[in-house]
């Protein structure tokens, strides 16, 4: 290791696996979700009497990605409070220290790294708030998506029992009233929120690359190796 630098651990193995699983699920959900909203390629690729199920496979991938997303969200929600590595909730509480750090990191971004008055060796409030926005968007997609899903289980039965659609109705029926009163409004917001998530991802990738380039601490390696390098004071 280069003199004057120390290695700091920033993501556990589980966090990294989760990160990439979620990333893959997101790409899959966007590609298949766009198809479900508006089938953009035609399946005149075979004779009619062929087992093709193009829409069925798109929905299968979409729903699989979604349920992995959902379970991941529940685990992450738990880790916000009970992680043995770093509890994100501690960086989200509006304490004076966190507020100062939030604006210090934001100032660093908008001054193009000319001002850097914070410790970049651990998770900072700005990035944690940014992750929180992502997780809230995911929870919103979870509720609206499961509402759309349960509309197809109108018999009240499912392969895993009647409790599942009942639970989904109980947990997600409010989204219909909340978005405007019709099933169509739920679809509209589920579709719209996808764009907010893509915008979120765009900035997320940009910001991590930008930090790597301007801070020279190898931040991009966190998602792969779990650690970065911080200058020793």
């Amino acid at each position, binding site marked *: 290791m*280069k003199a004057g630098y120390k290695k700091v651990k920033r993501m556990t193995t589980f966090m990294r696996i989760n990160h990439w699983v979620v990333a893959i699920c997101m790409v899959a959900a966007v590609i298949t979700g*766009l198809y479900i*909203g*508006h*089938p953009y390629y*035609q*399946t*005149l690729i075979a004779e*009619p009497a062929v087992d*093709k*199920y*193009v*829409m*069925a496979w*798109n929905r299968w991938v979409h729903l699989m990605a979604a349920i992995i997303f959902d379970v991941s969200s529940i685990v992450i929600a738990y880790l916000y409070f009970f992680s043995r590595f770093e509890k994100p909730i501690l960086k989200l509480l509006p304490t004076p220290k966190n507020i100062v750090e939030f604006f210090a990191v934001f100032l660093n*971004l908008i001054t*193009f*790294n*000319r001002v*850097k008055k914070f410790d970049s060796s651990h998770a900072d409030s700005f990035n944690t708030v940014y992750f929180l926005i992502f997780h809230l968007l995911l929870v919103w997609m979870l509720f609206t998506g499961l509402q759309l899903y349960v*509309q*197809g289980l*109108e*018999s*009240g039965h499912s392969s895993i*029992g*009647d*409790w599942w*659609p*009942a*639970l989904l*109705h*109980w*947990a997600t*029926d409010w989204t219909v009233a909340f978005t*405007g*009163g*019709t*099933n*169509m*409004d739920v*679809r*509209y917001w589920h*579709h*719209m929120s*996808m*764009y*907010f998530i*893509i*915008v979120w991802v*765009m*900035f997320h990738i*940009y910001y991590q690359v*930008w930090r790597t*380039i*301007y*801070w*020279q*601490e190898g931040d991009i390696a966190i998602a792969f190796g779990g650690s970065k390098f911080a*200058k020793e004071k």
Partner: protein
Amino acid sequence: MDRRDALAKMFGAKGVRVNTNRGEAYYEKLRRTMEKRLNELRQTPAATKMDIQKALDAEGLSRRDFMKWASAITAMLMLPASFTPLVAEAAELMNRVPVIWIELQDCAGNSEAILRSDSPTIDELILETIDLEFNETLMAAAGYQAEAHLDEAMKTFKDKYLCVVEGSVPVGVGKEWCTIGAKGETFEEHLLRVAGDSAAVVAVGTCATFGGVPAAAPNPTGAVGVQDIVKGKPIINIPACPANPANITGTIIHFVLTGQIPELDHLNRPKFAFGYRIHDNCERRAHFDAGEFVEEWGDEGAQNNWCLYKMGCKGPMTFNNCSIVRYNSGTNWPIGAGHGCIGCSEPQFWDKYAYERPMADAHIKAPTGGVEKSVDQFGLGLLTAAGVGIAIHAAVSATAGKKDEE
């Protein structure tokens, strides 16, 4: 109760489950209620000379046709097959249930759907035999004479008649333009007066249930549905444009049988009719799963009866039984005729469902209001804005930023 039932009960929202088997004890109790009710009805004098036997004879339909119909209605109402004789009896006693049918802001399409067929179905004949005390479209009387008849019917059958409403209620600016009768009652006053003395209110068609077409943007008359105006009365909504005569008959038969309203979903629609999603019982569903879509009217896909989703079919978001019951005595229905569903039994359908584009191409107002943009146009704009922002930040970082020293 096992654990699964307990969980279902705990989390079961209203309108969730279409329960088709409630156990013997339940049906036995129901049978006793119905028998008692039908006995009471039999004691009361028939209000019209018309009865179903005469109507059947006039159309050349046999007793066997009638019993076939009765077993179909029994199944539709989700009753065990042993209830068929009771349903048949209820149909025979239909002329003892007074109905006052009022018409508000609408096109009379629901009346037309029932009346204008050259070979009436038994559903339609049943509606002919009901004791229809008042109906603006059909009756000969007008002006003060009609008013007097309405008043008399309301007085005679107070708290016993069914108030059927067709059409929306204008309550906005200019509601005084819509008046009815010789005294110039507004529609709202008319509805409140007639519904006030009824046993139950049946809103027929999407205008009466959710405001329908008159309530579509910009809703110049401030049209609303019956349930927004009438309070403290049981209300049954039978939306669709027009409402299916089978569902109207089913609801009225249920009322005749039990004196009660059928089980309703969260939008006050009978579950026996609106508990199913069109998409899930559609004959073209396999083409949806296969990804075989009609791309334009009359193309190869259209000729092969492929899925109409890309032509804007709203079957996946619409709850109604047209894919099972169909219209005109099971003759056909919109998707069978090659046009997608327009979601006519859902609230706000004219603004949010009735367009010939898939959902993702819907031109619904963007959250910022004003300009009409599709979600994708808005989303692409959002992505571009974010991209431009990132590009500017990157460019300034590269030229004016300070890279930390190694």
